[in-house]
């Protein structure tokens, strides 16, 4: 089953060690086939709203910086516990902050 992990941008400034640890973590998960896709997100996005026939585009930012989603990872695991375990390891690397995890259905 697939899970989408979304990271909220934390307060902590990334340092050299974080980059190195993350690179090793990403490499390991990619090699084992767990990590299907990952990427960082621009905290300033834009919003599109539809109402009837009308579609409105609004430029961001919309939330406080630390509430914005800063990155995502799409993982393929066997169980929810595996997803939790991976996210736990991830949180250890990035330090304080918050992740949202949703199971992905389909395609």
């Amino acid at each position, binding site marked *: 089953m697939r899970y989408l992990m979304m990271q909220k941008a934390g307060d902590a400034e990334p340092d050299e060690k974080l980059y190195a640890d993350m690179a090793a973590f990403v490499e390991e998960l990619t*090699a084992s086939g767990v990590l299907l896709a990952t990427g960082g997100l621009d905290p300033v996005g834009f919003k599109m709203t539809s109402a009837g026939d009308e579609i409105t585009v609004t430029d961001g930012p919309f939330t406080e910086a630390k509430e914005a989603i800063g990155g995502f990872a799409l993982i393929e695991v066997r169980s929810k516990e595996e997803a939790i375990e991976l996210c736990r390891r991830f949180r250890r690397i990035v330090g304080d902050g918050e992740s949202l995890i949703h199971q992905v259905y389909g395609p």
Partner: protein
Amino acid sequence: MTNFPATVGAVWKQESARIVGGLLRLVHDVGRAEELAQDALVAALEQWPATGIPDNPGAWLMTTARRRAVDDIRRARTRERLAPDLARRPEPAEDDVLRLMFTSCHPVLPAEARAALTLRVVAGLSPAEIARAFLVGEQVITQRIAAAKRTLAESGAAYEPSGQLSSVLEVVYLIFNEGYAATSGADLIRADLCLEALRLGRMLAKLAPAQAEVHGLVALMEIQQSRSAARTGPAGEPIPLHEQNRGRWDQLLIRRGFAAMLRAREAGGPAGPYVLQAAIAVCHTADKTDWVRISSLYESLERLLPTPVVRLNRAVAVAFAYGPQAGLDLLDELHADPRMAGYHLLPGVRGDLLIRLGRAAEARGELERAATLAHNTAERDFLRRRAAALDVPEDQGRPLGPAVAEYLGPLRPATARAYGQTLHRVVRLAGDRTPVASLTSERLAEIFALCWPEVSPRTWNRHVAAIRSFTTWAGEPSLAAALQPRPLPATLGAASLSEPVGAVPALRERVLWCLLRESGAKVGAVLALNVEELNLDDRSARDATIVWRSGTAALLPELIAGRTRGPLFLAGRRPGPGRPPAAADLCPETGRRRLSYERAAYLCKRLTGHTLLQVQRQSAVSSDWSRCSAADGSATIELTAIDAALPDGAIPT
């Protein structure tokens, strides 16, 4: 709040390969390595709830297991000197996992054991999970894994991994196909096998990045897996590749497959079977399928893997690239291949090509034949519907299946069963609805050669007799013209019978065989004779329904030995207390029971090598077999059949 067993299980699945692989390096025994790792898991279950989950659970498990291994080795005292070094070894090297894979996929193991053991120790699945995936009992998997570990330990394979990458690839692809072949909704668990195989493949690609075939296999699996959602319809029926809804293909996996293909190309070297199959899979993802390229890829593949299935696929590709006739020509060679005899896709493909050539009548025959052979109900219905939709004039004559049923109907049950064995097999290969008139004697001979390539002449003749009987009944006797009975090997002649195989037959046996031959009576009737029924002077019994001649007459008094009543032929021993015989079968003078048919048959077979029936029918023998034949040689008589129609009740017990 943490669910510790579930967390430990998740960690185990992620880390088991590295842990067991690292331990294998220390203990050189897959079974022992796994036990140590399991011990560490138990320790984790005990300690984590108190201490919390460690930062790096995998390393924690590894360290714990390694300590135990070292303790173990210390205790064994055989490698005491080494133990301190072992404890200080650096973190496990990546090739530990590769080494573990080479070990669990070692060619000394049978294929299914390799798959089970790999899933157990490399993928970290429990025996119950593996059993569900392979649709067998958990016990079977446990035993299979245990036997595999034993074999590995005995062969010393853990010390010398085969290093054969092809063997590992084969196991991974086997696991993938096991899951991929399962299509129905109830088999979702089996589909997980595909993901396990993908994981193993990706892991392998990381460990052996220079091997083009590894990347080829990964690419092949990624691309095949990308279609998993699109390859079956709502009712579970298979959807052919070119009719699938491409929107349901998983683009992510397709891209991963492409990336693996690029890595395979970078690795270089001549394209192996997996790279070629992956290249074919890649071609199929294009919007407009390049059949010319696919057929040339299949041609290369056939050079590496000259199997009939590859040839069949190539024929399909060639038919798309160069026209149906070209494909059909390629298929002709397969027709006589015994490996394809029961494979429904061959007639299925032929039917397809014939439709495209406008030969509807032949196409219908092939599709119906394919339907008869198909195992899957959804597939069978699909083929039947296609066959029925063809516009074919109906005056084709009587179809084979119903004709056979009609023929067998009025026969005696035993005959119908015997002939049915032959005819149903022929129907299966020729097609249920194939008109009898459209069969040719060449086709029939071909079917016979496929079905019964290496049978004894006697069996062959039985099948030939059945088909001849049928064709004669059907008014087409010429159909069986190409099928000739085969000469039997020299049967038992006088010479062979004159020298009994075993010991010299006892008096009782000699009398029995003599009496059988001379009287021609049924075996059951002869065994049922009682002493008081014999008329020795007249050489007859039971109102002269059993009559014998001088051979028997000379021996009888000795056998009777003064008895006045009770069974003539007696068993060697008294009956046991558990099975009291009927009063009529018990000799009042000796307390022994009547010789049973089974025992008589056994003795005869053992002493002469022939059945009672054969002994009785060897009329020529009676004059030669001096030990029990009449001195005047007059024992040659007309024989009546005492065949197996002997009613059960007539067999004395």
